[in-house]
């Protein structure tokens, strides 16, 4: 108590406090990104194009990051099992194309078709995670991996027939990448798009994210939502207060899985391709590190963390190749990304978090 008040008195102490609450690595990453932005005009990169890129990618990825929030809040830890939700989304996407839907309609059909899969897989996943409290993250990782490799077999074996999805020669087995041209490519991004010179904002995409983020935010202010937060921050206390902890965790896992399914569909509409087989394998890691960069910890996350984190992470991913390459003439962006994202996860894992095991 005493130390705290004295700390607040000095300016240096205040800065220290700020660093403590925001986290040194986050400050470094934010500073790094700022530097990249400042440096970009000097190396001949158009700052508006760069910003457009960052905002675009923010729109594509934000919902995948948002999918982390419910599970973190309910005490299930970081959702390394994100690929499970992604698979539901991929099933929805491929089925929507298989059934012959085109244009913007196919996007909403894909969401509708992905939902039951997300519910079923999420329920199973939640049931499993309730059995192994304390070891969620490691097992979630491997649940994701197993699911992805299992689906690799299924993509070959399932009776898909749509000619632009299957291999041309044999007429069966899905291709590794499926073009969404004529389906829902850019459906959200082009909706209400604002364009000023080289700078454009995909309003539709951001709006879609805002609606979902608002829904999640609102959910956490309902009775169930607060109960979920309680179950996450102190399970014993929540149990004593009459909260069904297992049920709360189950709901959060299903929510996360469903959001991941939507997230991958939004990502695909921006990217323009459906990637299957091994593509979803490591998709959890960027999302995990993004939310951590945004200031979340292993057992606490907010919508603000999602927005800041996705922006910082995508900013670094898009800016480093152009800026760093022109400065040192080496393509170190890949390495920078690996070190930054995994370093961030490591940092979060080694923090002492109260209330978790």
């Amino acid at each position, binding site marked *: 108590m005493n130390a705290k008040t004295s700390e607040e008195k000095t300016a240096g102490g205040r800065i220290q406090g700020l660093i403590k609450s925001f986290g040194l690595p986050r400050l470094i990453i934010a500073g790094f990104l700022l530097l990249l932005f400042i440096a970009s005009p000097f190396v001949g990169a158009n700052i508006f194009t760069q910003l457009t890129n960052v905002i675009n990618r923010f729109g594509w990825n934000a919902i995948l990051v948002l999918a982390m929030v419910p599970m973190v809040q309910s005490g299930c830890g970081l959702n390394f099992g994100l690929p499970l939700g992604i698979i539901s989304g991929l099933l929805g996407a491929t089925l929507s194309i298989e059934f012959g839907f085109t244009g913007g309609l196919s996007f909403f059909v894909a969401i509708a078709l992905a939902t039951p899969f997300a519910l079923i897989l999420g329920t199973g996943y939640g049931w*499993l995670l309730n059995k*192994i409290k304390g070891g969620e993250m490691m097992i979630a*990782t491997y649940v994701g991996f*197993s699911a992805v*490799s299992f689906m*690799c077999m299924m993509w*070959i*074996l399932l009776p898909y027939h749509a000619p632009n999805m299957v291999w041309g020669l044999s007429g069966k087995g899905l291709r590794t990448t499926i073009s969404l041209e004529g389906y829902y490519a850019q459906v959200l991004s082009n909706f209400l798009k604002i364009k000023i010179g080289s700078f454009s904002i995909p309003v539709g995409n951001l709006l879609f994210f805002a609606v979902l983020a608002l829904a999640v935010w609102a959910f956490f202010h309902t009775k169930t939502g607060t109960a979920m937060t309680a179950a996450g921050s102190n399970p014993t206390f929540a149990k004593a207060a009459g909260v069904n902890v297992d049920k709360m965790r189950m709901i959060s896992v299903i929510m996360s899985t469903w959001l991941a399914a939507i997230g991958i569909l939004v990502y695909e509409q921006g990217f323009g391709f459906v990637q299957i087989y091994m593509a979803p394998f490591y998709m959890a890691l960027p999302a995990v590190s993004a939310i951590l960069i945004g200031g979340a910890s292993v057992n606490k996350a907010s919508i603000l963390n999602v927005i800041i984190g996705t922006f910082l992470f995508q900013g670094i991913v898009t800016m480093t190749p152009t800026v760093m390459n022109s400065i040192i003439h080496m393509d170190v962006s890949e390495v920078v990304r690996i*070190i930054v994202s995994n*370093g961030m996860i490591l940092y979060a894992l080694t923090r002492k978090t109260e209330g978790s095991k």
Partner: protein
Amino acid sequence: MKNNTTTQMSFGKKLRRFLSDNPVPIMFIIICAVCIPVSGFSPGYLLNEIMTRMGRNTFLILCLLIPIMAGMGLNFGMTLGAMAGEIGLIFVADWQIYGIPGVVLAMIISIPISIVLGIFCGKVLNMAKGREMITSYIISFFINGVYQLVVLYMMGPIIPIKHSSIRLPRGYGIRNTVSLLNMRQCLDNLMSITIKGVKIPVLTFIIVGVLCLFFVWFKKTKLGQDMRAVGQDMEVARDAGINVERTRIISIVMSTVLAGFGMVIYIQNMGNLPTYTAHSQIGMFCIAALLIGGASVDHASIKNVFLGVILFHLMFIVAPSTGTKITGDSMIGEYFRVFVSYGVITVALTMYETKKRRIKSRAGQQLKADQKGDEADE
């Protein structure tokens, strides 16, 4: 009392107990038993393959045992040692050291790198007690980034690499594959015996045997006992005057150094080094093999290693062709074996966690009962 019950157990009960104690190995024996006849490989071919792969992999898997003993779970950080071994091999290839001296030199070069990485890994894991596995898993990714930074960008301008045969044409960085033709299978071929077409790499097996003996001896030393104590209960060990943090770091360092050696042995058998991909899968495959051998997160023995190596590789060899025969698609079998590797790890981890929880809740109930008893006594 205990003896009595075991002798009284009927055969059926014993069998059931055996089955419930070893579900993973039994499942695998069944998978292999189904796949082998379908795949159509000759027993001679299979035996030969198993021998080669045993020599290649056993050493790497053995290095996982020490962290398990110290209660740190499956060491996904063994990848760090593998990277250290690869750096040793890159230097040896550049300095043109051939044959067994090259292998020995690569191992020696890997030692300091492994020790530094091991200390780093151990320190980080000490900060993340209770989630060692996921942390060591992320560490392996993190260090992979550093490895790429060193090998892809620093080798050439900063770390001298003479030969253009292993350097990328752009002037810095190492090529995708480094040929180790002059080192290829030099350990395996020395003293090898061929019986009816089955080549047995005797020297490699002797090295593995020496390592096994070392483990048996190590368990009995003061350090080994300390590690087991730390693995049983950290708090109790600390009360007993053991430096828990240091013991844990030592166990990781030992594992990392051994993984470096294991990687050198593994790569000398392969004959070329895939610079950027060799280590990416190695941790996962080794852990899957160990778990298939019946090990769990908190208990593993040398027996598990050998059984695991044989069963895992048997599955690995026969799965693709079985898949092709059954479904007509060659990829199915390949995906199948990847799926099985991941599936096994998932199942084993789940079983371990549920067991841990059951024990915990039982202990809780016991405590409650004891307290009630105490109250009644008063």
